[in-house]
């Protein structure tokens, strides 16, 4: 694997050069300077187009939203069709002509978010839309140096310096950067970015040392591989009937924050929208927290109670998904913990589940 050494100016030049043929996104602060008391002021970073070589803001933890919207957009137009009378193709669905085909580069993606794309790829392996979006999107990840207070990436099998899902992995060392070029897509980006020198052997060993040091800072309450195997071995009903679900449901307000801001929640609904003579069928985010998610036309609802819905989300992440696909459906980014208005903490749920006999 090729490893390059870069100064900040080199990176900035890369961003500028990439922006000539691609859309370059990174975390930026969302705020306005208006001094009125009712000014719109959103003091967090979120994904936005990086213009004029602007450097992504990476100092303040994770951006508000995960990167799933680049692969699983809200909404995705599945196809369109005409409903005009006399049109021989009326009501025949076709793939949309004006699909967003722009190539994209996501810069400053943390290892947890990059890994989420790989996990989502398991259920979406045969999904033409997800795969098309994936093909046109490159991920330039930045490994972590500090741990957010809500991070638990290691507990669920990730790593703060992991490169899974990345095309290029950038690591900051003091005042310069090291770039590991992982995929062909990454190689292409390096060619387009231009002018970076290969790292020396000494620099490469410094990179290794630095990564090992960061890795050691991120303790894990349990051995992740062991936890995963333990969970798979556990009896479904023992977990399902555990007593703590009702306590969780006592606090939960059944909103969609945790699912919508989760990088690995991917449930969706499909609906038709009609504008003038054109019908478009879209898929958009849905949440197993919502009562209507499972409501049948007959009025019967298999998960009509809040406790059933709360349980389903965690059971899906920690039991159903691993039983089906292997890993946990969670990257330990901690957004759900950070954003939950009633402090439901998935780390506690994981611990409680692992304690079930």
């Amino acid at each position, binding site marked *: 694997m090729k490893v390059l050494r870069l100064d900040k100016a080199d990176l900035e030049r890369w961003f500028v050069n990439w922006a000539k043929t691609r859309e370059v996104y990174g975390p930026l602060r969302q705020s306005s300077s208006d001094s009125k008391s009712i000014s719109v002021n959103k003091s967090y970073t979120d994904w936005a187009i990086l213009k004029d070589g602007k450097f992504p803001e990476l100092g303040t933890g994770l951006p508000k939203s995960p990167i799933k919207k680049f692969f699983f957009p809200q909404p995705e137009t599945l196809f369109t069709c005409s409903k005009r009378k006399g049109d021989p193709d009326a*009501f025949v669905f076709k793939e949309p002509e004006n699909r967003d085909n722009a190539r994209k580069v996501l810069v400053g993606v943390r290892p947890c978010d990059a890994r989420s794309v790989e996990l989502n790829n398991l259920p979406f392996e045969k999904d033409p839309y997800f795969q098309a979006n994936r093909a046109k999107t490159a991920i330039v990840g930045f490994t972590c140096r500090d741990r957010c207070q809500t991070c638990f990436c290691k507990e669920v099998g990730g790593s703060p310096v992991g490169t899974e899902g990345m095309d290029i992995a950038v690591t900051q060392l003091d005042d310069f950067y090291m770039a590991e070029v992982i995929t062909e897509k990454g190689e292409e980006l390096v060619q387009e970015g231009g002018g970076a020198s290969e790292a020396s052997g000494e620099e490469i060993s410094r990179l290794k040392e630095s990564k090992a040091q960061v890795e050691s800072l991120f303790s894990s309450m349990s051995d992740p591989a062991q936890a995963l195997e333990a969970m798979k071995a556990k009896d479904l009903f023992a977990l399902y009937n555990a007593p703590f679900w009702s306590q969780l449901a006592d606090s939960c307000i059944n909103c969609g924050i945790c699912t919508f801001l989760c990088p690995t929640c991917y449930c969706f609904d499909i609906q038709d929208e*009609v504008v003038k003579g054109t019908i478009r069928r879209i898929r958009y985010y849905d949440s197993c927290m919502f009562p209507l998610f*499972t409501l049948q036309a007959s009025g019967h609802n*298999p998960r009509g109670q809040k406790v059933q819905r709360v349980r389903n989300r965690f059971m*899906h992440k920690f039991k159903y998904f691993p039983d089906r696909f292997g890993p946990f459906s969670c990257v330990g980014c901690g957004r759900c913990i950070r954003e939950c208005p009633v402090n439901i903490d998935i780390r506690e749920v994981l611990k409680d589940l692992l304690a079930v006999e």
Partner: protein
Amino acid sequence: MTTLLPNPYIPYPARIDDIVVETEDGNLKTFRLVLEDEGDRARWSHVPGQFAMLSLAGVGEIPIGIASSPTEEGFLLFTVFRAGVVTTALHQMDIGERVGVRGPLGNGFPVDNDLKGKNIVIIAGGFAFTTLRATLLYMLANRGDYGKITVIYGARTPGLLLYRDELKAWAERDDLDTYITIDREAPGWDGLVGFVPTVAGQVAPSPENAAALICGPPIMIKFTMPPLEKIGWTDDQVYLSLENRMKCGQGVCGHCNVGPVYVCKDGPVFTRAQLQGLPTEF
């Protein structure tokens, strides 16, 4: 769009070729659909018990069991109960109009595997006879592959029975035992009277080398099991079909999961033994 993979979300265009009002209350209609594209017709291949998404552009999609047997070629039958937005819109459509069909989806009954060589007992209630009609026709077309076939089918009133002409024809066959029943006495009805579970208890089909395929309202299934269990039927001999809310039909969107399984992909057909190992979220 540069699609890298076949797109499972695109419905095949189909024309409504015929519409039969099945029940006297008008709430059930059978739609005969013909796929418009020759290639689509050639590609189509389903197993009894599978379903398809009927797609009404501008309205939405709805999963409906395929009521026609694979042995009936050139068209597809869907018997649709008017319940929600899409089914109501479909009921208002006319012969010649265009719909979309996405499928076939799900697993279907194991007619070519586990059911082969067995005595088959089909038990149905109300409008849940649709995929069992497909199954029965398939078995009759391959009559030698199965042992004794028994059909127990009931509805509230004679006017709510599906496929009434076919029921008459089946009753006259000597390679098939049919027991058609209605809940209460009705003028002009000289057949069986009584609930499906009661009739099932009276018929008492032998569990010897047999399988039961049961479709109907949950309450009917609940009360049909005890009389069968009493005479020795076990959960792995009983096949049921679930009807959870579904959207994608690919086991992805999450709507139909029952614990770790997706009804749209791993089902809708499960043995009762399989369902005992799942949370009762159906």
